């Protein structure tokens, strides 16, 4: 508001507008030399400084305003008396410097640098260095234009009121009864009809029997045929094409809702139409879409997930290539287990599953891991290979801390929810909720050196009883003295746990000799689902193996001896029981 009545601001604005809207740049060259607003600014500042030097307490701007008001009053009285032509508004700019005296716009003196000073610029005009002098239209302008287009479109559509009153036709012959040929004899109709031929029949006769494109079902994901549906344009390099064609991407327009597998199908469809002779395509499951630079270099990333909608990805360039045999790690995992959900999309038929398995097997035999043998053997070997791969991934993840929620079984009766953290250095048990019976429970942290083994003791349909064996710190046999495990209720020496059939007794004098002293093992029992139990067991044991834990070896050695002894003297009295 104030700005539009401020001459200085207006001057600056006009100048900037000229410069910014002129595409040729001539305005700027011409106006570069005499930057009037700047010169006024300097003059104004000089005046303000001079006044400040006089020692008044008011700030420069307000003083200037007052001075300006005074001057205006003086000028109005002057105008009345002197020649009016000198003060006609349009000629103000032409007037000599010293004659023009007005308040400088306050923001302008903030910065001497014109380019940094945004206050002199109009907010509607913004310079974008990357688009040169072109300026974007505001949202309002775009909206208005859209409305305008819609209006113009609507103007072309003739509108008819559906509910209007019926007006009988003016012309008498508007409704004209057509005379139909009288009913011919039935026999007569049979013959001529056979000879008649329609345009469709003629057309079909001309076009030979087409072999149906195998990827026809994916044709419906072509976005070019759809109106009003969100589509996506992707350039796809088809890796299977010979050299010259391979370097040029296939431009496809696909519905945003299509899954990646359907995009692959559409690319196959388009490619088979464009290059019917060179391409011998297999089923869609053989191919995958890989991320690509626009220079058609395939990135070393895994392919896009077949199940995801293509709208999820923002790639402009992709490469269709044969699925790399790197994938089987996860593929066999899913495909060899019937009943689990397929890794790839549901559209996969059994043949494709078999294909994938065979491909995976071929890969394995190429690696020399698995010799070629009967199919049933192969399946086992695949599982073994898978197991080794899984172990490998476990080992990779071993140092990573993992936390699980499960229930700790206390005195084989009470349960409380705890958080179990397994990491490279220690295991931690933290009670989640405070139950009134166990207010004394504290956070337990046991160094991994004291962890001996982890096993699933009991497995039901869904639930599993998991046991973590620890070395009891003291050899006194009294669990209560164990400082590292204040949850004494659940910590037991092996002697007491021997009642459980699946956990044979350890420790004590006959076996528990380790480094000249008896090792006592205690354990924590957890109740959780099978899957979590298996995960924890795998992880914890993997850590122990990787750390080459002596304790674990000792534990297993003891157990080995224990089982051999019990099996030898099965009916003998249980002398092991201490």
């Amino acid at each position, binding site marked *: 508001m104030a700005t539009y009545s401020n001459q200085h601001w207006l001057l600056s604005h006009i100048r900037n507008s000229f410069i910014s809207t002129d595409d040729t740049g001539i305005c700027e060259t011409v106006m570069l030399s005499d930057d009037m607003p700047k010169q006024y600014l300097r003059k104004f500042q000089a005046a303000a400084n001079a006044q400040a030097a006089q020692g008044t307490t008011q700030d420069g701007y307000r003083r200037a305003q007052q001075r300006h008001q005074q001057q205006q009053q003086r000028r109005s009285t002057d105008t009345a008396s002197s020649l009016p032509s000198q003060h006609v508004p349009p000629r103000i700019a032409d007037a000599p410097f010293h004659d023009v005296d007005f308040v400088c716009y306050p923001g302008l003196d903030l910065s001497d640098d014109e380019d940094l000073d945004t206050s002199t610029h109009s907010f509607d005009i913004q310079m974008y260095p990357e688009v040169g002098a072109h300026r974007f239209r505001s949202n309002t302008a775009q909206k208005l234009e859209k409305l305008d287009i819609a209006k113009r479109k609507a103007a072309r559509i003739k509108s008819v009121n559906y509910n209007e009153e019926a007006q009988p036709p003016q012309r008498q012959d508007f409704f004209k009864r057509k005379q139909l040929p009288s009913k011919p004899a039935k026999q007569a109709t049979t013959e001529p*009809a056979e000879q008649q031929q329609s345009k469709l029949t003629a057309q079909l006769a001309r076009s030979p029997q087409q072999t149906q494109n195998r990827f026809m079902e994916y044709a419906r994901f*072509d976005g070019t045929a759809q109106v009003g549906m969100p589509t996506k344009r992707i350039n796809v390099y088809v890796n299977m094409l010979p050299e010259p064609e391979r370097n040029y991407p296939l431009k496809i327009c696909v519905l945003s809702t299509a899954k990646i597998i359907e995009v692959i199908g559409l690319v196959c469809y388009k490619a088979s139409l464009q290059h019917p002779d060179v391409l011998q395509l297999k089923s869609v499951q053989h191919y995958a879409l890989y991320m690509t630079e626009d220079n058609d270099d395939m990135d070393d990333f895994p392919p896009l997930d077949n199940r995801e909608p293509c709208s999820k990805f923002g790639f402009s360039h992709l490469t269709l290539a044969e699925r790399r045999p790197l994938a089987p790690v996860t593929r066999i995992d899913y495909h060899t287990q019937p009943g689990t959900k397929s890794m790839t999309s549901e559209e996969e038929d059994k043949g494709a599953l078999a294909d994938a398995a065979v491909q995976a097997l071929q890969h394995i035999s190429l690696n020399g891991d698995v010799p070629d043998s009967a199919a049933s053997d192969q399946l086992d070997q695949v599982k073994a290979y898978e197991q080794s791969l899984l172990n490998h991934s476990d080992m990779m993840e071993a140092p990573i801390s993992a936390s699980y929620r499960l229930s700790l079984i206390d005195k084989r009766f009470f349960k409380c929810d705890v958080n179990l953290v397994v990491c490279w250095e220690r295991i931690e048990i933290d009670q989640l909720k405070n139950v009134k019976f166990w207010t004394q429970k504290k956070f337990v942290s046991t160094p991994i050196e004291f962890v001996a083994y982890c096993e699933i003791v009991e497995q039901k349909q869904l639930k599993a009883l998991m046991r973590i064996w620890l070395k009891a710190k003291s050899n006194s046999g009294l669990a209560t003295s164990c400082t590292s495990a204040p949850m004494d209720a659940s910590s037991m020496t092996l002697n007491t746990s021997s009642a459980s059939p699946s956990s044979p007794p350890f420790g004590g004098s006959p076996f528990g000799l380790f480094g000249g002293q008896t090792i006592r093992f205690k354990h924590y029992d957890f109740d959780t689902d099978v899957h979590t139990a298996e995960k924890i067991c795998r992880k914890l044991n993997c850590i122990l193996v990787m750390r080459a834990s002596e304790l674990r070896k000792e534990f297993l050695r003891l157990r080995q001896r224990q089982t051999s002894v019990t099996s030898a003297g099965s009916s003998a009295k249980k002398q092991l029981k201490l």
Partner: protein
Amino acid sequence: MRFVETSQVNALDRTPDKTRLAACGYQCIRLYDLESNCTAPIINFDGVQKNVTRLGFQEDGNWMYTAGEDHRVRIWDMISAPPHCSRVFDCQAPVNAACLHPNQVEIAMGSQNGGVYLWDVKSEVHEQLLPEVDASIQDVAISPDGHYMAAGNNKGNCYIWELSSSPNQHLSTITARVKIPAHNRAILRCKFSPDSRMLVTTSGDGTACIWKIEDFSKWCELVIKGYWVWDAAFSADSKWLFTASSDGIARLWNLKTETKKSIRDYTGHTKAITALSFKDEIVPD
């Protein structure tokens, strides 16, 4: 071309000169220009309150009829610059189907309360039939030779009447001929072949059945398992049949071969096809 977001297309018809396509649906009647690339309609009907179920053109394109669930069948004068309504018929119940008699002045209609009407547009006389109570008529058809009228209802039954007329007679005389228990589920369309020797009924049970008019026996059954067959159209020589079904595929069937398998599938639709319009011609020898 995009009809409207909110509705399926209930019926399609083209003007006899094949320059315009008319489509109707819920609260919508639109005419499109087929000669330009413009996908916007050229004529739009405003103020449509209910579902519009059928439309069709008179053979010279002079007028168009529309049938709607507002109980009314309207005749639109298409010669006048903005089309205007020149006749209205009130069926007292939502109209599901309408069909023009080849004599170009009579319109057969089927309503949701089970009534079948034959209305002479010129003299505005009409006759009402009620073939089955508690059943909704889903479609009506009149054979191209003008001798038969068929109506299919939501119980899967198809009724056939014989029409006869003499000169100077306003409305054809209707004689009931036969009731065919055609389908287990609702009939969606019935149509006579151009040679008037076959009748096709399409149904929600995933089949389209072709009936011989000679003896009203089933001639063949085309199966699109698990999908509704919404519409069908014969070629001009009655040798081919197109079907539109809810699996989004339009199929072409050869009716002259023994094995009834579709010979061409027209894929491309992402949703169910609910109506089709096919205009074929006889090639002059």
